[in-house]
């Protein structure tokens, strides 16, 4: 029997409506194919929307600003774990993608009328990031207008639940729920792009948006696509600690406050002395985050569970927006914590926060995944960043690989001639699956399981990990999946904007990705970049130079160690540890 659903047919289906998905929509739209974008939230959304919008590109205007240097900085920052063929594409195409954005209508800051202002970042050999004024939302609006101008159509508040494949194993679209009405939908597509990467919501404290529950990774995994380097999660040292609602939202970067910023624990000690005596508060984000996390975990945090930032020694007059140079951040701090805190006259409490998943769906240069008809772009895709990422490389990644995903997915769509009939069996199965949450009568609410997962991940798979904790985490996650998930229940039977229902589907995705991340972290018996093991605290170049690969083998996570693409730069080149 055919369940009640709506079929919508398109050439290219893009799941995720951040900068990567929209850029893909522009490119596919330009090629004249029909494009549909699914957005779980309402526009504008995604991690790019709340990013500062800095994008790295080499223009060659400053001495030493070469593509080779951008390549080298990126590979060194990745601790050699990136796919160098992808980095080559990034540095080659970045400048052209910036020009594209400006042609669409984005405004980049200038030094002189025909030169972009470029800013420095940790790990850069030269200032390289172009800026859009500290806010990226305008970039999304420009891309949205450009994409819709080419005929792309966005379905907002529509959550894709799963990818469907035909007998040949090719992806033929996705099933989805319209969150507003609760209606079930099948988006039939000739090719599909996953651009719904972020998974910060796996962690108790994150800068990510409400929707960032790893849906893209989980969907890709379930349909048999390979994931790589999923143990690498990037954390930032400075997030809001209260109000509770704001927990994890980025306060700024330690380096952005001023020269004389001090990071203190509850005892008033400048704790960076212990972890990085030479670089102190100017250390890279992974080292600062790890130091703060250890201080807090070892009981030297404030009663609210944070560290203290003391800016009183800074000259407060040095910037027009006060010491917090980004005016959006300044206003948020002012409204939440008061004017004196925003002006850095009062001490600021902060916590490390989960920011970005460095791993993701394995792609080639054409953004093809290991499954025919399935493409990935943006944070969903990997492996561009390896073990650590330069600031400003992720937004430009959305542009470079979004463009490629759109281009090649449109090409592929044009080659698929026969429209497949609806796979009614599969759709019915997905339909039942998605509605099963309504069958429960007592047990756990989705938000309770979400919180349990977030606690496990923060405490055991977070900034500092160890074998014992990771094994415990895997066991606890399995326990949630086997014992608690089947007893999920919802407070309301309404299908209209029932966010508990959305959360029930998110919990399923979260637990899948959490388990993958934990298992990859357990396999990697070394510390490298964002992945730190207290039981293996050294970088092990003899055994650690591999890409960790995850594959769904009939429902169980199968891990393997794959060789790295080191086509241009081999690890010995730069000496130990970059």
């Amino acid at each position: 029997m055919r369940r009640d659903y709506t079929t919508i047919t398109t050439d290219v289906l893009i799941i995720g409506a951040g900068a990567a998905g929209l850029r893909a929509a522009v490119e596919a739209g330009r090629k004249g194919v029909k494009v549909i974008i699914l957005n779980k939230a309402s526009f504008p959304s995604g991690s790019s929307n709340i990013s500062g919008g800095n994008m790295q590109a080499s223009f060659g205007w400053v001495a030493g600003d070469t593509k080779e240097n951008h390549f080298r900085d990126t590979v060194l920052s990745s601790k050699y774990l990136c796919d160098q063929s992808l980095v080559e594409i990034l540095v080659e195409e970045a400048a052209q993608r910036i020009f594209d954005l400006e042609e669409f209508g984005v405004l980049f800051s200038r030094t002189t009328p025909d030169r972009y202002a470029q800013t420095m970042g940790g790990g850069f050999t030269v200032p390289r990031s172009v800026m859009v004024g500290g806010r990226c939302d305008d970039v999304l609006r420009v891309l949205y207008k450009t994409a819709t101008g080419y005929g792309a159509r966005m379905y907002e508040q529509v959550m894709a639940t799963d990818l469907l494949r035909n007998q040949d194993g090719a992806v033929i679209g996705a099933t989805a729920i319209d969150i507003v009405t609760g209606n079930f939908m099948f988006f039939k597509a000739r090719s599909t792009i996953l651009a719904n990467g972020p998974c910060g919501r796996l962690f108790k404290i994150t800068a990510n948006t409400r929707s960032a529950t790893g849906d893209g990774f989980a969907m890709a995994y379930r349909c048999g696509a390979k994931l790589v380097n999923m143990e690498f999660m990037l954390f930032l040292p400075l997030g809001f600690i209260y109000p509770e609602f704001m927990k994890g939202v980025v306060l700024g970067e330690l380096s952005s406050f001023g020269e004389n910023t001090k990071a203190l624990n509850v005892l008033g000690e400048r704790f960076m002395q212990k972890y990085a005596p030479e670089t102190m508060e100017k250390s890279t984000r992974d080292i600062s985050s790890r130091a703060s996390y250890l201080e807090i975990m070892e009981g030297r945090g404030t009663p609210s569970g944070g560290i203290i930032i003391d800016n009183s020694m800074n000259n407060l007059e040095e910037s027009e927006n006060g010491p917090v140079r980004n005016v959006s951040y300044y206003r948020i701090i002012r409204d939440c914590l008061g004017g004196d805190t925003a002006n850095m006259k009062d001490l600021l409490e902060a916590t490390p926060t989960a920011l970005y998943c460095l791993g993701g769906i394995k792609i080639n240069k054409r953004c093809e995944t290991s499954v025919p008809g399935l493409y990935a772009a943006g944070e969903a895709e990997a492996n561009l960043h390896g073990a650590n990422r330069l600031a400003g490389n992720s937004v430009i990644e959305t542009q470079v690989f979004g463009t490629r995903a759109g281009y090649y997915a449109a090409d592929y769509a044009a080659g698929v001639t026969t429209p497949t009939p609806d796979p009614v069996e599969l759709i019915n199965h997905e339909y039942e699956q998605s509605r099963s949450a309504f069958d429960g009568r007592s047990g756990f609410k989705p938000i309770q399981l979400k919180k349990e997962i977030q606690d496990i991940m923060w405490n055991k798979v977070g900034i500092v990990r160890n074998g014992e904790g990771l094994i415990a985490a895997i066991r606890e996650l399995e326990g949630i999946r086997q014992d608690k998930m089947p007893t999920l229940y919802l407070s309301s039977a309404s299908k209209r904007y029932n966010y508990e229902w959305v959360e029930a589907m998110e919990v399923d995705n979260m637990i899948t990705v959490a388990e993958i991340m934990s298992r990859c972290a357990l396999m990697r018996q070394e510390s490298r970049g964002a992945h730190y093991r207290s039981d293996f605290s050294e970088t092990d170049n003899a055994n650690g130079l591999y890409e960790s690969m995850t594959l769904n083998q009939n429902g169980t996570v199968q891990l393997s160690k794959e060789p790295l693409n080191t086509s241009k730069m081999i690890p010995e080149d730069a000496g130990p540890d970059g």
Partner: protein
Amino acid sequence: MVKEITVSIFRYDPESDKHPSYQTYSVPSKERMLVGDVLEYIHENLDGSLAYRWECRMRLCGGCTILINGKPGLICREQAEPSMTLEPLPFLPIVRDLVVDRKSLLDKIYSVPPLTRQKSPVRLPEPIAHEVILGLRVPRQCVQCLACVAVCPATEVLTADLFLPPKLIQIAGFAIDDRDTVDRVQESEESNLFDCACCHACEEVCPHEINISEKVITALRNKTYEHGIGRGGRYIKAFYDALQAKGKVNASGILLRSQGYLRAIMKAPQGIRLIARGKFVSPFGKPIPDIEDIRTIIGPTEQEK
């Protein structure tokens, strides 16, 4: 004893409820609580069936705006108060509880054509001064949270279909851009630019503190004057002439003079309603007694000069 926040929340499921109702919750109060904290507490501990929306927490998605004690605000920005009433935004169809369907208005706002150049820039980067960029970025800070729409008296009188501050903000963003070739004057007049009363209510609620009266309304109005006396200019002239002639303003007279007979006839239903309520003022009344004083204050007419 733990202090409590008493919050009364609008509940309505158009599929199953005949009428909206209000439900009261008690939420333990603590230091530094946003409205978002109160809603999250309810979701996690008291009632999972309450529908509300949030996404980014950085005032950039514009999706979490509701009425807090009657005033529009973002739940990620407004502080919780000891006693609160939370309601959905007005003007929009209710999806459920505090969630509204914003699509009808957002489509209108996004319908503003993007930056349209005569031809693609020949040289890249396109030469443009940084100071100019800073100015162009001001109207681009709008995130379409619709808070201004909810407080705007012009919107209230005309309905949100006809006067949308965020739409004018969008238009202003391109109108002040010298590279743009679309006729933004016509666009802004068609979007009822001259219906703004410059009361600044929008600015009080704008989460991005955009100076709407000056950077949007005045900037666009100045733009229309550059192009001679359009509908907007006629409006101001009609206003001025009415004061000159009678010392008082008469709505129907101004309507006739500024919009022409055809458009005025289209507004006849409104006129009939005014007559029915005894609020219609004839345009043919006598001047006020102290008309000469008024004339002294506002100066000579265009002809007299």
